[in-house]
């Protein structure tokens, strides 16, 4: 089975709000000292990809589209025994929105020989769109399942538990398919072994550009434009309950909540 897992590096979401800064004039994030990390849902997708490969054989290719070097996250994928890692970028792509990204990713997957299963994180911690995976499915003409907790493969079909409000929906899907993955007890990321990390360091990470792919330049034009990026002012003023005695504080709180008619 050929599996492609699409990874993304994001600003560390654990960064404290006071350290989070934006350049409003240029509608950009200020990186500052914040780390770039492998997005956590992409980590779950990678873990699932490796488990499926280990069980059914085949290969896992880790792919990312990024203007920055992504050796850290792709190197980690290799250290976790992904068979291949590829970064895709072209200097002509200034501002890829979700549609443009999906177009580029789909063409890169084709360039890599296609796939039976393409896995994504359900959404990234930075843009939080949840768009790209489904759009890649459409680009490739693949079946599409979003927010999958588990995926089992048998006989060119997958059985997917899709997380929904109040439980799961079991979806049967014919391969090839694109699946976006959510965190679940079964896809907690593994840790790399020292031996595999050493091996991974010797593996090259090729960079594919527009010229290597069958990219339609018109399709890399964005369909949405970021007009403004701002830090919202914190809502409301918190009324701190006075007093040092827990009993009085509890009493005052209940009184205030009754005044607000929420108790």
């Amino acid at each position, binding site marked *: 089975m050929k599996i492609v897992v699409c990874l993304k590096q994001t600003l560390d*979401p*654990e960064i404290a*709000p006071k350290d*989070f800064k934006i350049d409003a004039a240029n509608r950009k994030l200020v990186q500052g000292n914040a780390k770039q990390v492998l997005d956590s*849902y992409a980590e779950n997708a990678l873990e699932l990809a490796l488990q499926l490969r280990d069980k059914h054989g085949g290969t896992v290719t880790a792919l990312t589209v990024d203007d920055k070097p992504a050796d850290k996250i792709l190197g980690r994928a290799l250290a976790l025994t992904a068979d291949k890692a590829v970064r895709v970028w072209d200097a002509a792509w200034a501002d890829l929105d*979700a*549609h443009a990204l999906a177009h580029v990713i789909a063409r890169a997957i084709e360039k890599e020989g296609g796939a039976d299963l393409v896995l994504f994180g359900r959404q990234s*911690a930075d843009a*939080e*769109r949840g*768009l790209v995976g*489904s*759009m890649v499915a*459409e680009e490739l003409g693949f*079946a*599409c*399942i*979003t*927010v999958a907790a588990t995926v089992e493969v048998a006989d060119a079909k997958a059985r997917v538990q899709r997380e929904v*409000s*109040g*439980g*799961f*929906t*079991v*979806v049967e899907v*014919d391969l090839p*398919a694109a699946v976006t993955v959510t*965190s679940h*007890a079964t896809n907690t990321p593994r840790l790399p072994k020292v031996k595999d990390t050493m091996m991974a360091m010797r593996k090259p990470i090729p960079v594919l550009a527009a010229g290597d792919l069958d990219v339609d330049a018109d399709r890399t*034009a*964005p*369909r*949405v*434009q*970021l*007009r*403004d*990026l*701002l*830090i*919202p002012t*914190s809502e*409301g003023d*918190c*009324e*701190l*309950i006075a007093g040092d005695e*827990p*009993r009085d*504080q*509890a*009493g005052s*709180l*209940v009184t*205030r*909540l009754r005044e*607000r008619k*929420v*108790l």
Partner: protein
Amino acid sequence: MTNILTLAGAQEGTVTKASLEALGAARIIQAAQGGQIHAVLIGANTGDAAAELIAHGADTVWVADDPALAEYQPDPYLAAAQAAARQADAGVVLTVGDDTGRDLAPRLAHRLAAGSVTEVIDIKVDGPEIQWVRPVYGGKAHAVYVALSERQVHALRPKMFAAPAREQGRQGEVNKLGLSLDPATAAARCVEKLQEAVSGVRLEDARVIVAGGRGIGGPEGFADLQRLADVLGAAVGASRVATDAGWVPATQQVGQTGKMVAPDLYIAVGISGASQHLAGVTAAKTVVAINRDVEAPIFKRADLGIVADWKAVFPHLIDKCKEIGGQA
């Protein structure tokens, strides 16, 4: 002037809340720009739901009613939405980003070559331009987008847009969407539903939620939270720290990566208030924070706060709530 299409569903003949929220958002645009509001009603035994959509502001309803569509099936639902978008000549398609809308919107956007924004929390209309506001970076920032494409498909964050008032006797058109939609032939088939085991009140439905985080310290502390919840008829929630530590099941996680809740009262106990967590409580009406650290970001979101060790306050809080009869 552009037509707007909203996605709608019904359960046992009753229009879902999400359907009305989408109509509420559509009316914001219609009020500024005119145009017709169409709704596509997809489901089984939709009954009077089409008339209800008209009473709540739809001018035309396209109905795809079939026993096979009783539960969400990605491919037929997508086909119905796509057909309705064509019939309505919709420039803007709106859905609420719940389990169904979140799944449909990106694929529909792709099929309509439409620009797309998800998790929309606010809409601003400036002349011919519609601006879509959404949180990014776990709510640390807000992004304002405009579409550059001729058509747009957007998903609204649940519970952010008010349903339009019901107008008795409002007139509109109801049309059948002539489609044969057989889920059995689709590449992806929803075959079964597995219920999550829930004891007590579901978080999404709860009017009051008592939630705990790192400061709770372990599963024993959550037993105390449950005691208060029992008195108030509340549900117990948790931050990602608490669920990752295994103190409570992952199903109780509130936040960007857990459940989005909209209670009247959210009592955050020992929760620092990371933006990831706060993203799950944007729609909470009143937030109470109990935390030892006055610098904790939760106090920026909270309406009422107690700066104290929660363990000292809690027994009294439970007693006081019992005194008032506990009916939340």
